[in-house]
């Protein structure tokens, strides 16, 4: 293994301590100093937004959209109520980085939320956690939130200033779709988690019809250090278009699955090495580089690319949420797709016709193929469906459900053909 990889320096920095989630640990690493300074100086909001723009930070929730640019969609002049929402619904199969950030470094998320709320002029912000976080994750986050309240980092007249920011935690009921930002807004409003059509975008009309910014846990947890160390520091890490660190959740056939925070642009090979290499020294057959909803890449392709937004996009996939799923040479790709398709079939919210009907149709065909009852016609139909679903729905779930199917057949069609007994 290369010793010079910088690991766990940003969102996972508290892991170096024995008591990572405590307030003392966070403070000892300079935590809340950024926030204190902002409160003390009453820093210009635009200045903070400009810093984030310059840092080149891209949203870590999946789409990789520039965080600073998103914040600047908020009209700071208007006196409308504004909201910040932290997306902690992490449900993309393979992804488990937000869980560990909330678990081991909850104060960074809170400080990030405070800075973001301040910068966009929100006095109320919500952290929406997935229902399954009810155990340790929620406990740690809630404890941190209580500490932040009792130290008056949050609340009214923060640290003696005129600044008031309420921070609420919310627990979801376990639907993947609520991770989609507008479905999350519906859910916070007490409605069913149905994504909203856009426009209007949340920055114009979001929560309770007010301008709202939604950011991922990792995005927000990165903010305090970006502000205190400055954009130049952040730019010095990673690549030109993908600056900074990124948490990768490595899973599958590796010896040491887990979360690894490394600079963007780290070669895939190095990340694999960090994760202890492929189990039983087998060869890699395929890798899903960014969570179950991005296209799969064959081993020989991914072995030669770096883990940043551009390189993975050039190779035909997406960095997504950074969930790297590794499959060895013995993996049955039809069975993998069967499992993925079932997930999307049961998680579609059901609003849009193509997604509601198409996810079921794809799953049922794959299921039929697996049971040996499929035909060539079925594979033809299956091949045509992703394109019919993608780009035609309210939210990106449709694309998310389509991309795996399309890419699995593209690279591993033979395996599908092997399941056909009766040709017709």
């Amino acid at each position, binding site marked *: 293994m290369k010793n010079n990889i910088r690991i766990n320096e940003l969102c996972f920095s508290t892991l170096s301590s024995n008591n990572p989630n405590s307030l003392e640990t966070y403070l000892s690493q300079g935590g809340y100093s950024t926030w204190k300074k902002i409160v003390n100086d009453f820093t210009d909001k635009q200045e903070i937004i400009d810093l984030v723009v310059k840092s080149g930070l891209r949203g870590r929730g999946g789409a990789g959209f520039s965080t600073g640019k998103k914040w600047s969609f908020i009209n700071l002049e208007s006196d409308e109520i504004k909201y910040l929402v932290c997306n902690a619904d992490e449900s993309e199969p393979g992804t488990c980085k937000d869980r560990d950030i909330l678990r081991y470094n909850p104060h960074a998320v809170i400080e990030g939320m405070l800075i973001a709320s301040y910068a966009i002029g929100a006095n109320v912000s919500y952290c929406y956690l997935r229902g399954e976080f009810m155990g340790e994750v929620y406990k740690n986050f809630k404890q941190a939130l209580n500490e932040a309240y009792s130290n008056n980092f949050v609340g009214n007249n923060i640290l003696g200033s005129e600044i008031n920011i309420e921070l609420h935690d919310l627990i979801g009921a376990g639907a993947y779709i609520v991770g989609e930002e507008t479905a999350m807004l519906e859910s916070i409003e007490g409605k069913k988690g149905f994504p909203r059509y856009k426009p209007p975008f949340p920055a114009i009309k979001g929560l309770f019809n007010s301008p709202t910014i939604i950011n991922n846990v990792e995005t927000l947890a990165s903010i305090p250090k970006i502000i205190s160390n400055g954009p130049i520091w952040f730019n010095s890490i990673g690549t030109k278009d993908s600056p900074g660190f990124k948490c990768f959740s490595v899973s599958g056939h590796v010896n040491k699955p887990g979360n690894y925070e490394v600079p963007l642009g780290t070669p895939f090979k190095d990340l694999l090495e960090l994760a202890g290499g492929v189990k039983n020294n087998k060869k890699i057959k395929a890798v899903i580089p960014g969570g179950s909803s991005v296209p799969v890449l064959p081993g020989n392709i991914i072995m030669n690319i770096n883990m940043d937004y551009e390189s993975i996009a050039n190779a035909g996939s997406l960095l997504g949420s950074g969930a790297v799923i590794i499959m060895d040479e013995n993996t049955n790709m039809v069975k993998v797709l069967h499992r993925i398709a079932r997930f999307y079939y049961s*998680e579609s919210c059901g609003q849009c*016709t193509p997604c509601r*009907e*198409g996810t079921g*149709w794809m799953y049922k065909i794959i299921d039929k193929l697996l049971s040996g009852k499929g035909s060539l016609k079925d594979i033809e139909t299956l091949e045509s469906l992703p394109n019919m679903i993608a780009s*035609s729905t309210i939210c990106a779930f449709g694309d998310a459900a389509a991309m795996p199917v399309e890419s699995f057949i593209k690279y591993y069609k033979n395996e599908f053909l092997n399941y056909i007994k009766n040709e017709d």
Partner: protein
Amino acid sequence: MKIKINNKECVFDKGDTLIQIADRNGIHIPRFCYHDKLSIAANCRMCLIEQAGANKPQPACSTPAIEDQEYFTNSDLALDSQKNTMEFLLINHPLDCPVCDQGGMCELQDLALMHGRVKSRYKEDKRVVVDHNIGPLIKTNMTRCIHCTRCVRYGEEIAGIKEFGSIGRGETMEIRTYLTSAINSPMSGNMIDICPVGALNASPSHMKGRTWELEKVKFISNHDCVGSNMDIHVLENKVFRVVPHENNKINEIWLSDRDRFSYEALDHNERVKKPTAKINGRHTEVEWDQAFEIIKNNLDSINSNDVSGLISANSTIEEQYLFQKWLREMDINNIDYRVSQNDFRYQTEEPFPKIDIPIDDIENMDSILLIDSNITYEQPILSHKLRKLFLKNAKINSIHTYNYTYNFDLENSILINPNFLVDILIDFVEYLSITSNRKFDIPAEIRKKFKGNAKKSVQEIAKNLLAKKNSLILLGSSLVSHPDYQLLKILTNMISIMANSSKGYLVENCNVAGAWLTGCMPNTTKKISKDKNSRFNVLEAINNKLDSYIIYNLEFIDFYHYKELKKSLDNAKFVLGFQSFVTEEEKSFYDVILPLATAFESPGTFVNIENEWQSFAQGCKPYYMSKEGWKILTKLRLQNGASIDNSVDYIDVLNEVDSVVRNQKFNMEEKYNNLVIEKKLNTGSLTRFGGIDSYYIDNIVRRADSLNKVNSKKNFISVNKKTLEANNIDITKNKLIVRQNDNTLLVELIIDENVSDNSVYIINSNKEYYELGKRYQPIKIENV
């Protein structure tokens, strides 16, 4: 601003969506979830079109147009997207149109013809959805549902009662009631119309006919005072079903359930089939000519001053006109239509039953005061207008004797015992006399009643009316039987003048205005009557026990003085009925009954509360031997030697009514004399009150089978706890006895805090309540 759609230049305003622009320009874009009366859902994805330069298709229903862009609804991208959506829609939809009730009028079927594949590629199992019983009006077939959520949005937005929702997720999502319960909205039937497929069907006509076999005739509602427009669909000379007919000034595209389903009464077994006459004490079927002769002989032998003619305010204006004309030609002048009224004081002439503003103008109001109106159930279309106002942030206030269920929220409300309605209105007058800058000469008799301090809640409402530019006061229709009805109207009028508000006297019947205009009342100043003598109104006619009564399209329970009427009829020498329906009991009181066609079976005209005349053609042929009212009355006039052409036609009648009534100017200003304020309702004890069940208000609707299954018809009363305790009622028991004079009834008790103190709320929904006694009278409650 401009865009191009399919190379055609279209202008638009900022914010317009592509589908709106295309619709205005006659460019077809397929759609299912989009409906111009509902919010945008953008979920069906049928409306995808191409925007030049964009790689993704755009949903036309939710995408605002961008200036100078080009769009294509028929490019490959657009057509492919639409075809894809259609294929997805059909995979789980049954492809058995021949056995679907919606076949032939199905939006999915129509669009599938244009955008569908010839053969389905889907070989997997189809989704099957279990149906739940949601009541007698709507038959569901949810396997056919395409999840467009129009019905869900209709409930939330239009009906204002959220009964349907989408339960579950993805392919297993179901549209259904949240709890397994029946739909309760009085406008639920509209969901049948807006459902684009055969998932929600009209229960009474379900599977009984095909859309292409039906003839369509426009008709006007005969159950409330707004005159909703509707189409009756006729199959083999019978009303098969009723659907709304768009009229943006009145009902838009909606219809109340009452209007939609009342036709079921038309072949009720109490329909009168043939003329009958009492011969030797027994009713015997006779020929029409025979019946006419008996009538003539009897009326000729009775002094015309001893005859009273009473006609329904639900009859057409042609019938009302001819009825009074026939009677007045015989010098019979005791004519009236106000059979449910109980107060005839003060006014020299009954004020015109109207609303000051056009119905569609209600949408421009910003403050409303309801005076004891159960408007959501009594006048669903007007209630819908108020709901729209509410959604636009207008303030709706109410003074009521029961906390009625509305499909909007109230800003301020006052719950008051019916004995004190007059007093509270006087409080308004008093408060306004101080605060309003509109000068008004308040009669001294009213001034005498001023107390010096109006309740805070009265002040709030009055301030609200004064503060708003466009305000409207509506007097509830069931108050027509209130013993101080005239006083309530006078006070309402005063308040409206001082608060600079418009006002409306709501009424229960569809053609009260027609009856008023044609002078179907005594002592009218209208030219129609040359009579100068003082004559009997309905109350006097009953009390004076006349020799003969002629009752046109009214049942005995339609009379406020129900029991007194029966006594007088029993005592009379000759009782004649023109009736579509008659009960066995009623039959025994009549000497002759003529079978009358209902409004569905006759051409006619109704005049609604805004004085809008709406004519309609004959929907279907009269039942059995019954005849249209205008024909019967014309025959009777001919028999009396009236100088009319033997070949007179309906159109001649309409023309005559037009020239004699419609083109005449009436003085509609309200004048009152002798304003001695004497509250007649002052029971000093427990008071019975409550209107008529909205499915029991007239002879047709109370016989409509499905409607009458919507609510339980069990005998029950509602009383609040305080009142029960004051009357020593054991509230652990759910039964009690109510007593009015010598009559008692065993009823179920509902402890209901919506009832005002010291009163007993009874919704009159069956005959036993009428046998018990009258509304607005003292009542006693006793433990069983």
